[in-house]
């Protein structure tokens, strides 16, 4: 048993950290916090990371990885989030592993090194207006026509569709079989005629998108792996996506702690406010535990064990800590927390307000908390599904 990183893991962490401290520009950080997704500065940063082979530490060396232990991907996501860099979750944890594990040799050769070199960005498009938690009910149809497929339908809540190079798309390829057995995955160029992307914005200003497909023709060799096996690929990849991170919580938490310390020094926090220290201690504890639960996912992957509920638990727990952290932060800010326009009265540069508004999103994305609990109960505890 060893709860600390190995020497190799520590070295990777140190390398990523010092790289980010040096290379994350104010412009890239601004793009990261804007909610608009990857802009030119973020992309330049990712390419630079790719050149240093920092982006896919666990992947095979032949595709630009380092073959390090599974926990290093959490090290990467934590460090990037902490240093205001855009962790490219979609391509590193959805499309990337999807192609690596299930793609054809040609697809591996085409995409993998371009992913690890930070050149290309994927958008994930699974959700539809009628297929949210019941994502297997998706209806966007791909009809085989010669050596192409013709796509018609709609996706929604796709957060990177407006700036991606490729869409990692789940479609229905067989309407006659049970819903889980008739799904396939395609890699689609977003500039293909017939695709329309329309913006949606969350209450925190994070951009999501609707994508409309109107007689979109896609080459048959863009089908990932086998036809009608898409559901297995989605579930496999979701276990990556759901590993989660609290790196983007640690930073605002540290800033909140510093803010409280300053107010205390200035005599603006008094003995009557002793609940603040206790609440900070509570959040610190839960952040710490969230990290352990997330690392546990890596541990199981390292032992080549079968992940059943652990990624769901990590994701669920992290979303709860997030909510608590920003509730506490807003309580500490009191009436100042509601001010939007910049002035001398705004503490912590109104950053907290935006994160507070964004917190509810995290108990919805990548499977709502109720779905995580279903998975924990049925796959983790063996309770009957019906």
């Amino acid at each position, binding site marked *: *048993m*060893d*709860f*600390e*990183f*190995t020497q190799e*893991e520590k070295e990777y962490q140190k390398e990523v950290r010092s790289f980010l401290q040096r290379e994350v520009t104010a412009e890239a950080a601004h793009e990261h916090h804007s909610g608009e997704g990857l802009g030119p500065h973020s992309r330049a940063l990712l390419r630079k990371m790719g050149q240093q082979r920092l982006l896919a530490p666990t992947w095979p060396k032949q595709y630009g990885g380092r073959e390090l*232990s599974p*926990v290093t991907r959490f090290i990467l996501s934590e460090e990037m989030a902490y240093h205001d860099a855009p962790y490219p979750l979609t391509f590193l944890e959805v499309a990337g592993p999807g192609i690596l594990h299930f793609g054809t040799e040609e697809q591996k050769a085409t995409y993998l090194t371009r992913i690890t070199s930070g050149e290309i960005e994927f958008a994930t498009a699974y959700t539809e207006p009628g297929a949210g938690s019941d994502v297997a009910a998706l209806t966007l149809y791909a009809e085989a026509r010669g050596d192409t497929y013709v796509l018609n339908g709609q996706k929604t809540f796709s957060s990177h569709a407006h700036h991606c190079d490729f869409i990692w798309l789940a479609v229905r390829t067989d309407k006659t079989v049970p819903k889980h057995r008739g799904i396939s995955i395609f890699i689609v160029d977003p500039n293909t005629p017939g695709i329309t992307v329309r913006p949606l914005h969350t209450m925190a200003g994070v951009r999501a998108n609707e994508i409309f497909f109107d007689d979109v023709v896609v080459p048959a060799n863009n089908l990932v792996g086998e036809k009608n096996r898409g559901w297995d690929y989605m579930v496999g990849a979701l276990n990556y996506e759901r590993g989660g991170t609290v790196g983007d919580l640690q930073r605002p938490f540290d800033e909140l*702690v510093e803010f*409280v*310390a300053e107010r205390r020094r200035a005599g603006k926090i008094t003995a009557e406010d002793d609940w*603040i*220290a*206790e609440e*900070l*201690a*509570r959040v*610190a*504890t*839960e952040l*710490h*535990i969230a990290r*352990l*639960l997330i*690392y*546990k996912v*890596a*541990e199981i992957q390292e*032992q080549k064990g079968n992940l059943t*509920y652990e990624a769901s*638990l990590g994701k*669920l*727990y992290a979303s709860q800590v997030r909510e608590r952290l920003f509730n506490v932060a807003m309580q500490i800010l009191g009436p100042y927390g509601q001010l939007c326009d910049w002035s001398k009265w705004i503490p912590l540069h109104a950053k907290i307000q935006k994160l507070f508004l964004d917190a509810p999103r995290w108990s919805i994305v990548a499977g709502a908390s*109720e779905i*995580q*609990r*279903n998975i*924990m*109960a*049925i796959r*983790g*505890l*063996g*309770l*009957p*599904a*019906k």
Partner: protein
Amino acid sequence: MHLNLTYQQEMVREVARDFMRDKFPKEVRKRLDEGESGHSPEIWQEMAELGWMGLVFPEEYGGAEMGFIELAILLEEMGKVRPVSPFFSTVVLGGLPILDAGSDEQKRAYLPAIAAGEAIWTLALAEESGRYDAAAVAMTATVDGDSYILDGTKLFVPDAHIADYLLCVARTGNGARPEDGITVFIVDTKSDGVRCTPYRTLDNNRLCEVVFSRVRVHAADVLGRAGEGWDLVQALLDKAAVAKCCEMSGGARRVLDMTIEYAKERKQFNRPIGSFQAVQHHCANMLSDVDSSWLISYEAAWRISAGLPHAVEAAMAKAWVSDAYRRVLALGHQVHGGVGLIDEHDLPQYFRSASAAEVAFGDARFHRKQLAQRLGY
């Protein structure tokens, strides 16, 4: 990073699990609960023969030289059945501080007897305030020649009614801070002036009032340095909190297992109740509390084993597990419904244990305050 137990540690677990299952069936627990002392000297001897009391002691003191992790495993397995012996008091509250802070002479004098199951130990710390901090220590010890005279009343002393020795924390002076002037004494419970009254607790254990009336203790029986004893008490309390969390994690795991078993079996509306999402989500929330409790407890235990600083992790563990175990019980009861309320059912026993463990060595709020202090919030 490696979060699993070794093969050897799994073996320790297996032996502990079988022993607890075989030696403490329901009838035995009931007999002990209803008996005068709540203690079985026969089973205690068998535990000694397995080497449990000396598990973490060096070989020269009759020990097995294992680490705190192995101790954590034993405590977890005990917690799964029920902590129903003076093991915790003797090993965690008595043996460990002697090992950590005792002189060579004290170690030679006391540790082999503990390892052999010949001596039961405990800690007399808390007083009327019921708190586990230095300011709560009011009992005095005054110098008289080459001895000290102890006067005062200790409360909530576990197993004192069957103990041979106790570590007694008393004030030998006053300084700028409440931590100054505290001394830890090794006291033979047969000494003149020691009077012990056991009280039954809601978890069917015994906590004692121990009154010291002019009890004479020789200066050679001071543990550590006179007047500087609080550091060793604090170290002891951190380890005790972690040890208690390991025990609680075991109990919480068992409650989850019982609940899942029941949810699969029990049918209402022609379906197992475990197929209803309302019940499934209760179970998922229990799983979250059980897994998280185990991880934070074992991280703290591992840090102790590895000789790393652990004050922060210990406070985090007790702050978290105290609340989590209570939540696990509340949901476990909810899923069991009426049958889980009946006193013959096993569940109430865990409810009782969780309540007692929650306040042992400081509850969640106490440890969050400690943590805030330690992290400079």
